[in-house]
C-alpha cells in the first residue's frame, strides 16, 4: 500500500458509518415500516396473500416481463452505446438526445402515446387501417417498456464507456487482423461486463416496478402484474386486510429483485479493475447506418406516439378528427387553471434537488466499492427502487409522517430513497474502469484529498455524474405515485395536478399536461446533452 492509504483509512471508516446511516434513514426505515404492516397478519396471513391465485399469476407475469424486457433492452442499449459513442463528436452530439428520447418521455405518456399512435382507432389505424396487433396485452407492454428501457441501458453503458480502456486494445486487435465481430467479442464485451450487469440490474428492477404501462395496456386484456395488483388492493385498502396483503405483495417484489440483483452485485464486487485510457473513441466506419437506425428507432418508438399525444392535446374533444378546424389551445388553458403553475415550479425544484443529491449519494456509495460493507448497502439501495411507489410512499409516511407530514421535504425523502440507485449505478460502472494509480500518484506528489478529488477523480467521472443527475431529474420530475400520496397543503407537485385531470377524465387536458410534463425535459436535454458531448 502507498502512503496515501494510511491517512485515508480513518475517514474511510467514518464514511462507511455515515453511508450506512443514510441507507438506514432513507431505505431501511421506510422498508421496516412496510415489514411491520406486512407482519401484522402473521405468517399465515403472509402465506395466504402470496398463495392467492391472483398473486401467483401476477408474480409469474412480472418475472416473465422483466426477463424479456431485460433481454431485449440491454443488448439494444449496449449496441446503441457502442454505435453512437464511437461516432465523431459532432454526430454523437446530435444522436445522444435522439437515443435518450425514449427516457425523456414519462412512462405513462409513452404508454398513452402508443395507444393513440398504434392502437385501435389510433394514428396508423385511421391513416392506413393498420393497428398494432397485441398492443393491449403482454406483447404491447414488452414493446413499450423496452422502448423506455433501451435508453436507460444506453446511459449506464455509456457511463462505463466514457472511461473505458478498450481503444488501444481494440485498435491492436483490428491491426492484428481481427474482424469487427471478433474484436467486439474478445475485447469490448468482456470490458463492458460491469456496465452490462449494472444496466441489467437497473432494467430488471425498473420493469418489476413499472406501473403505468402495465396498467394502461394490461388491464384491458386482464393481464395483471404485481404492481397493478398492489394498485388494485390500494383501492380496496380501506379494508385493513387488503392493505396488509398489498404490503406483502410489495415486499415480495423486493424479494424478487433481491434474488435477481444480489448475485450480480456480489459478482460485481469481485471484478478486477483495469488501467484507464482516456483517448477519444475511434470513429466507426458505418456512421450513416448508425444514424439512420437511431432515427428510425426513435421515430417509431417515441416520435409518432408523442405526435399522437400532441394531436390529442390540440383537439377539442376525443373522437373528433385532428384537423386544424378542430384544433384549440383550450386544453392548455384548462391545464394551467388553478394550481398547475405553482405545482410545476415545485416539481422542478424537487427534481433539481434530487438531481444534486442523487449523484452525491450515488458517488458516496460507489466510493465504498471493494469494501465488504459496500455490497449490502448497494443491495439495500437497489431494493428500495424495486418497491412500488405507492408502498414505498406508505413506508416513508410511516417512518417520517410524525415530523414531516404534508411538507415538500417528505416527498424529497421518498425521491432520494427511490432514486438513489440511479446515482449509484452509473458512477459505479465508471469507477470500475478508473484505476487507483493516478489517485495514488496525486497523493504521493502532495495533493490533498480535496485536490485529488477535484483534479483526478471527478473529471473522468463527469459523464457518469451527469448521467446520474439527468436520470434523477427525469425520474423525480415524472414521479406520479409517491407525491400523490405524500403531498400536503402547499406542496402539490405537477403529478397531483396530472392525476386530478386524469380523474376528471378529460383526455385533451390530460394530453396537454402530458405535453407540459415532457417539453421542459426535452428542452433541457436538447441544451445539456450536446454540451456534454464536447467533453
Amino acid at each position, binding site marked *: 500500500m502507498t502512503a496515501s492509504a494510511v491517512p485515508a483509512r480513518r475517514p474511510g471508516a467514518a464514511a462507511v458509518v455515515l453511508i450506512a446511516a443514510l441507507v438506514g434513514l432513507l431505505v431501511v426505515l421506510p422498508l421496516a415500516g412496510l415489514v411491520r404492516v406486512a407482519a401484522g397478519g402473521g405468517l399465515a396471513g403472509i402465506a395466504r396473500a402470496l398463495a392467492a391465485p391472483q398473486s401467483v399469476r401476477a408474480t409469474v407475469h412480472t418475472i416473465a416481463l422483466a426477463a424479456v424486457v431485460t433481454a431485449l433492452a440491454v443488448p439494444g442499449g449496449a449496441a446503441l452505446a457502442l454505435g453512437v459513442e464511437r461516432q465523431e463528436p459532432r454526430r454523437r452530439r446530435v444522436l445522444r438526445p435522439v437515443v435518450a428520447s425514449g427516457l425523456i418521455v414519462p412512462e405513462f405518456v409513452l404508454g398513452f402515446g402508443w395507444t393513440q399512435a398504434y392502437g385501435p382507432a389510433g394514428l396508423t389505424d385511421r391513416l392506413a387501417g393498420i393497428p398494432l396487433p397485441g398492443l393491449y396485452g403482454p406483447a404491447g407492454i414488452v414493446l413499450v417498456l423496452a422502448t423506455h428501457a433501451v435508453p436507460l441501458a444506453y446511459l449506464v453503458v455509456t457511463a462505463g464507456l466514457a472511461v473505458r480502456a478498450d481503444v488501444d486494445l481494440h485498435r491492436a486487435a483490428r491491426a492484428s487482423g481481427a474482424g469487427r465481430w471478433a474484436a467486439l467479442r474478445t475485447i469490448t464485451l468482456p470490458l463492458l461486463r460491469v456496465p452490462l450487469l449494472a444496466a441489467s440490474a437497473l432494467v430488471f428492477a425498473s420493469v418489476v416496478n413499472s406501473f403505468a404501462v402495465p396498467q394502461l395496456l394490461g388491464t384491458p386484456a386482464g393481464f395483471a402484474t404485481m404492481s397493478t395488483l398492489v394498485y388494485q388492493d390500494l383501492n380496496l385498502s380501506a379494508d385493513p386486510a387488503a392493505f396488509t396483503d398489498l404490503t406483502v405483495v410489495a415486499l415480495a417484489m423486493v424479494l424478487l429483485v433481491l434474488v435477481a440483483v444480489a448475485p450480480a452485485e456480489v459478482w460485481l464486487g469481485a471484478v478486477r479493475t483495469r488501467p484507464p485510457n482516456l483517448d477519444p473513441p475511434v470513429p466507426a466506419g458505418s456512421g450513416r447506418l448508425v444514424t439512420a437506425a437511431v432515427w428510425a428507432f426513435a421515430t417509431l418508438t417515441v416520435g409518432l406516439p408523442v405526435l399522437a399525444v400532441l394531436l390529442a392535446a390540440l383537439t377539442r374533444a376525443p373522437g373528433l378528427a385532428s384537423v386544424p378546424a378542430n384544433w384549440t389551445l383550450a386544453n392548455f388553458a384548462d391545464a394551467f387553471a388553478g394550481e398547475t403553475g405553482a405545482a410545476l415550479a415545485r416539481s422542478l425544484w424537487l427534481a433539481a434537488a434530487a438531481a444534486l443529491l442523487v449523484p452525491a449519494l450515488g458517488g458516496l456509495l460507489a*466510493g465504498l466499492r471493494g469494501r465488504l460493507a459496500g455490497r449490502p448497502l448497494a443491495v439495500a439501495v437497489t431494493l428500495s427502487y424495486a418497491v412500488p411507489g405507492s408502498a414505498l410512499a406508505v413506508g416513508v409516511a410511516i417512518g417520517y409522517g410524525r415530523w414531516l407530514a404534508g411538507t*415538500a421535504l417528505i416527498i424529497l425523502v421518498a425521491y432520494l430513497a427511490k432514486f438513489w440507485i440511479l446515482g449509484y449505478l452509473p458512477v459505479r460502472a465508471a469507477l470500475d474502469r478508473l484505476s487507483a494509480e493516478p489517485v495514488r500518484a496525486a497523493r504521493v506528489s502532495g495533493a490533498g484529498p480535496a485536490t485529488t478529488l477535484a483534479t483526478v477523480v471527478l473529471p473522468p467521472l463527469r459523464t457518469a455524474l451527469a448521467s446520474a443527475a439527468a436520470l434523477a431529474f427525469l425520474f423525480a420530475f415524472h414521479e406520479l405515485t409517491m407525491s400523490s400520496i405524500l403531498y400536503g397543503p402547499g406542496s402539490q407537485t405537477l403529478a397531483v395536478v396530472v392525476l386530478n385531470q386524469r380523474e376528471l377524465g378529460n383526455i385533451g387536458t390530460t394530453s396537454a399536461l402530458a405535453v407540459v410534463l415532457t417539453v421542459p425535459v426535452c428542452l433541457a436535454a436538447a441544451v445539456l446533452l450536446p454540451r456534454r458531448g464536447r467533453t
Partner: protein
Amino acid sequence: MRNIGPAAVLAAAVLLAAGCAGSSGTPAATASAPALTLYTSVTQNTVDAVVAGFAAAHPGAKVDVFRATTGSLNARIAADQRSGGLKADVIWGTDPLSMQSYADQHLLRAWPVPNASGVAAAAQARYFWGTRWLYLVLVTARGLNPAPRSWSDLTDPAYRGVVALPDPAAAGSAFAALGYFSQAPGFGLDFYKRLKANGATQVSTVPEVVTAVAQGRAKVGLTLDSEVRSATAKGSPVNLVWPADGAISLYSPIAQVATAPHAAAATAFCEYVLSADAQRRIAQTGWQPILPGIPGPPQPSGATSVSPDWTALFGRQRQLLQQYQAIFGA
C-alpha cells in the same frame, strides 16, 4: 479512491441541509375562524367550488384539502393511522364502500348534523350521509342503430365485440355496477359471463370508457352520466342513453373523523355541504345534488334509477372482484 469519502460526505451534508431549508413548513391553524383538513376523492372542480362557498359563508375559514384518487386516499389514511393518527377532520368520498370500512375501524364519528332534512334514507348510514348522486348510464357512438335501450341489451348479438366496461377494481363507482348486477334478479355474475361471451372488453377507468366510444374503439359503454355530458358538450360524437330499467345510482358520502382535531369546524363543514348553497355548487359542477329540491343536470323524462343494497355489499368487495376477475381476467 478512498479519499473521496470525506469531501463528498461534506458536499452531501451541505446539499441535504439546503434541501431542508427550501421545504415549506406546516401552516399554523388560526383560532377564531373555522380551520379544518379535508381528505377527499371528489373531483377537483367540485371540491374547489364547495370549499370556496364554505369560505364565503364563514369569512376567514381555511380548508386544507388533500385530494387524491380513492386508492391514494386509502394509502394516506393507512399511513396516517400508523404514524400518529388520522390528520383529517372530514372525509368526503366517492362511494360508500371505503367509508363503511373506515366506520368499521372506528375512525368516524356518528353523523354530527342533526337537522339535515331531505336526504333520502337510502343515502344515510349511521356514520356518513350522501352529498350527491352519481349515475351509471350507457354511452353510445353517435349514429349507432339500433341503440341499446336497457342493460340486458348489452348481451345482444347486435353488440357483439363493441361493448366497453370500466374495471371494477379501479374505482368505487365502477364497482357499483358489479355490486348491483351481482344482486339483481335476472343478472347475477352470469350477466358478466354473457358479456364476456359477447366479446365485451374491459378498459381501465370510467372516463376512459367514454374516450373508447368517442374514438371508435367501442360503440357502447358503461360509464358515469357526467362524463358523457362533458364529452358531448365539447363536441365528442357520443350519446347518453339512460337505461330503461334504470341508471345505477351511488351516493358520495361525507363523514366527520372521530378524532378530528377541529371538531366544531368539521361539523360546520358537513352541515354546509348539505346546505342549499353548497348543493347548488355541486349541481353547477355536473352532479345531481342529494337534496331533492335543488335542480341538477338534465335527465330524460321518466328516468329512473336503481341502486345496489350497499349493506349487503360491505365487506364483500374483494370476494366479488375475484369472482369477476375469474371471468374477465387473463
